[in-house]
């Protein structure tokens, strides 16, 4: 958004303050000449003045930094008096004072540590040549960018603004889809979840306000893509790590995504959305330091699917409803002392779908799958800054996911729950050094039942974690972070320690290098674990080297990584009936990725280009050799362009994502994972039109070119009479997806809108 140079200089022609002081003295002197008593007084005054002059001390000198460069604008003064001055452009200063005896001279400058010296003042000139040491300034200091991609408004090292997540064409308001335009990710079109650097979707852990979210993606059936359950307009920013992340996060081999909810909203408002797929309403109420937001939405794809031809054989189109409430309260004043905030957030939803899934080699409609999902997530989190550099945060969260599935005639019920509690204390010992200590407790339980047969299996695991992380700034250019996360699982009967380390160095040209390394553990997915509950952790080791440069509305990021996998889960037989489950697999992923974002070169246009190369092989699941996993295409790229047309009051967007194709296993050929699909490509277009500031009309279309993307092939479980396995491609739900929505905001401030919903 370009506000342009609408804010000119304010400095300048302010009305002058009258010089009344001098005219008064003039009157006094004039007046005195006609009055003898006044004359004496005047003489006395002069005498006094000259006496004072004799007691004056001249203090002068130069203020420099440790390299000898001048520090202009430093404040030099005698403590407890008005006597003082500022250093000039060459660091020189001088002033006189009437104070005598031992006095404290204070020297202060922005960006430097203050100094105080005692000098004895007796009328003899005092020379002070002072070296000021640089102060650590969190605002401009180096930050660790290895593996990390932040979105937010405040920090400089961000790659995305919160708004970008939702105005990215093709993302359709889905946070995950927007993140898939960033380096290090792979689009897997028949799944919809986050795949990071050769890792599968379960290797990414997702957090809201620091607390883990279970089943963050909607339940779905195989090969029907899902989306993130949480609306993008809940969040003010995110921290997405593609590896080498902090000791604060664990139980994820590849990646952590931390989403931070909004603090206090600005105003009372009601938001109406009317979409081609459904509608919703959100009401926000704000009073002083408190806020309440409540929303309800309903979506149903049936009307859309009756108009647009679908490739899937739906018996009942997906429909869902959700409702959420969020409460926030803050206290204190951050500058003057203790302050903090408490947030409570509750989300509940339900969804339904029924689909026929064709079986390769079979001419019928295939398997009938019906899915009813009920999901609840709730968390209460707090943060509090105390005195003496203490900062506390933490909370409680519960995720509850229930899937009732009908597979042909079988009724299956799956129940997954995660309880997470966390308390963290951070202490700033000095501007250079801070130490973070956290305790976490998890209860994870899972059960699955064949309802008609009354058969059930389940497990409950208690996990206890401690993490400690120290951050040390050697200077504003060099920072080092070291951490250790330890954990214990009651079910796996295993205790583990995972060290993490990172360092970053800032160069002269605003660019910086970071390096991160660490060990990561993750227990096996619940569907396998429930069959064999004593399975221990899989492990990964990351090494990441990153270069990051932000300058003048351009961002460049390059990263090289190496990731080593150990103890990956393996089994024999089909995935639906695994046998001999063990942790015998291993593998690696290595590669480089690039990201360039430019808001400057083309007027009113913001674009970014991403390229990721991943070379990954692993022995996992039922594979007997190391293979390139189907979810790790070698070459991945994306281009996102946003162009604002003021005359049309519209934001035009396009995004293109591409990869070199997905590997798949063809049982008709010797070996494993021998084949690869053709390249994947999707070009999306969108337009957001603001006829009034509080009304937005958004229209988007994915895969405009109608390319028939294939994500792999399914094969019959048995060969036919000719001895070959029949196959069918796994493709898209429809060639294109068209979305239209009208978003209206009702508030006193007529300019408020829902740009965040796009």
């Amino acid at each position, binding site marked *: *958004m370009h506000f342009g140079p609408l804010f000119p200089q304010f*400095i300048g022609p302010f009305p002058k303050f009258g010089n009344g002081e001098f005219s008064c003295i003039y009157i006094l002197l004039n007046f005195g000449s006609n009055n003898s008593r006044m004359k004496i007084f005047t003489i006395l005054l002069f005498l006094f003045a000259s006496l004072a002059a004799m007691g004056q001390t001249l203090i002068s000198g130069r203020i420099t930094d440790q390299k000898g460069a001048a520090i*202009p*604008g430093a404040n030099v003064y005698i403590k407890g008096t008005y006597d*003082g001055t500022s250093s000039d452009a060459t660091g020189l200063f001088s002033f006189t004072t009437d104070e005598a005896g031992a006095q404290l001279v204070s020297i202060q400058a922005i*960006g430097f540590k203050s100094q105080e010296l005692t000098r004895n003042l007796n009328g003899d000139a005092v020379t002070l040549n002072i070296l000021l040491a640089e102060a650590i300034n969190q605002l401009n200091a180096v930050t660790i960018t290895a593996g990390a991609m932040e979105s937010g408004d405040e920090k400089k090292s961000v790659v995305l603004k919160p708004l970008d997540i939702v105005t990215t064409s093709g993302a359709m308001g889905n946070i995950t889809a927007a993140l898939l335009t960033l380096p290090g990710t792979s689009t897997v079109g028949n799944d919809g979840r986050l795949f990071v650097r050769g890792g599968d979707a379960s290797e990414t852990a997702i957090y809201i306000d620091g607390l883990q979210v279970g089943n963050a993606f909607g339940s779905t059936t195989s090969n029907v893509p899902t989306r993130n359950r949480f609306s993008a307009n809940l969040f003010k920013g995110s921290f997405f790590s593609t590896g080498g992340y902090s000791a604060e996060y664990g139980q994820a081999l590849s990646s952590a995504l931390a989403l931070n909810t909004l603090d206090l909203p600005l105003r009372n408002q009601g938001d109406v959305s009317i979409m081609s797929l459904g509608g919703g309403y959100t009401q926000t109420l704000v009073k002083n330091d408190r806020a309440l937001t409540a929303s309800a939405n309903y979506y149903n794809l049936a009307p859309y699917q009756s108009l647009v031809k679908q490739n899937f054989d739906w018996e009942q189109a997906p429909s869902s409803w959700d409702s959420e409430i969020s409460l926030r309260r803050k206290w204190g*004043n951050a500058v003057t002392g203790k302050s903090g905030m408490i947030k409570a957030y509750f989300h509940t939803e339900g969804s339904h779908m029924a689909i026929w899934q064709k079986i390769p080699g079979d001419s019928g409609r295939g398997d009938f799958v019906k899915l009813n999902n009920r999901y609840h997530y709730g968390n209460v989190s707090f943060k509090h800054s105390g005195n003496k550099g203490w900062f506390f945060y933490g909370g409680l969260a519960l995720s509850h996911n229930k899937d009732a599935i009908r597979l042909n005639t079988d009724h299956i019920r799956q129940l997954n729950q995660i309880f997470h509690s966390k308390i963290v204390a951070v202490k700033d010992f000095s501007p250079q050094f801070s130490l973070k200590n956290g305790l976490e407790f998890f209860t994870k339980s899972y059960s699955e039942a064949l309802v008609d047969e009354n058969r059930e299996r389940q497990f409950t695991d208690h996990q206890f974690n401690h993490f400690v992380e120290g951050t040390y700034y050697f200077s504003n250019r060099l920072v080092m972070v070291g951490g250790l996360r330890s954990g214990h699982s009651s079910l796996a009967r295993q205790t583990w320690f995972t060290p993490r380390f990172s360092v970053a160095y800032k160069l002269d040209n605003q660019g910086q290098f970071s390096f991160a390394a660490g060990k990561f553990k993750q227990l096996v997915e619940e569907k396998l674990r429930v069959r064999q509950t004593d399975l221990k952790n899989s492990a990964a080791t990351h090494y990441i080297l990153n270069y990051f440069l932000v300058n003048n509305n351009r961002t460049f990021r390059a990263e090289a990584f190496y990731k080593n996998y150990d103890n990956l889960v393996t089994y024999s037989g089909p995935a639906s009936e695994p046998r001999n489950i063990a942790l015998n697999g291993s593998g690696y992923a290595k590669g480089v990725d690039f990201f360039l974002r430019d808001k400057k070169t083309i007027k009113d246009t913001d674009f970014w280009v991403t390229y990721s190369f991943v070379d990954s092989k692993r022995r996992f699941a039922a594979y007997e050799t190391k293979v390139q996993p189907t979810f790790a295409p070698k070459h991945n790229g994306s281009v996102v362009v946003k162009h604002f047309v003021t005359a049309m009051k519209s934001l035009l967007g396009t995004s293109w994502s591409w990869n070199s194709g997905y590997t798949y296993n063809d049982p008709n050929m010797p070996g494993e994972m021998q084949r690869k699909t053709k390249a994947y490509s999707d070009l999306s277009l969108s337009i957001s039109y603001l006829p009034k*500031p509080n009304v937005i009309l958004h229209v988007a279309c994915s895969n405009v070119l109608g390319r028939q993307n294939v994500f792999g092939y399914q094969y019959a479980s048995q060969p036919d009479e000719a001895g070959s396995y029949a196959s069918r491609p796994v493709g898209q739900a429809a060639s294109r997806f068209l979305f239209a929505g009208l978003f209206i905001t009702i508030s006193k*401030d007529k300019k408020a809108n829902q740009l965040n919903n796009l």
Partner: protein
Amino acid sequence: MKKLAQITMLFLVTTLSAFAQDTPYQKAMKKEVAKLTESDSLPVLQQSANAFGRIAELNPGEWQPVYYQGLAYTFQGLDKSLSLDKKDEVLAKADELAQKADALSKNNAEIVALQGFVLMAKLNADAASRGQSLSGPVLQTFGKARAMDPKNPRALALTAQMEYGMARFFGSGTEKACGYAKESLAIFASQDEQALKAALVPTWGKSLAEKMAKSCQ
């Protein structure tokens, strides 16, 4: 005639003694406020910020020196010659001072207007990427200041400037912005500037209101 002279004399002496009663705090403040309103360069603004810092340290209960120190840093943050990093550094300082002033004098429209001014300067430092996220908070803060004191001419003039920029961005009418500018100018005209200055309350902003009113013509 002599009597008249005596009365005049007496009158003069009273005025003089009233002047002489200015505390060192008031004297220092008046001198520095005059300097700040005249300053037009970064070094002078920094000198001004330093001087108010010295006054604030000696008078920890007064909000005015902290307010003016914050204002001096805000003016620096608007200087085009500074890099974004440097602007953010001085504006972070300004923000801190505005909050400190707020803690010293609660519900003070002048201080809330300054908080909005600091936010507006932050927006201005990188309008392309901060416009969307900060324009709401800026308008909201000015709104808060106007609610506390509907006749605060600085809150009105700053609102006018912000509304003007928004209207131009959305291609909508500038009537609202110009209304605020006019109102601000009228209040400036009706105020006794010297009396306000003597009471050490903020008086700056008239030229901004004049400029906004001019843009509206």
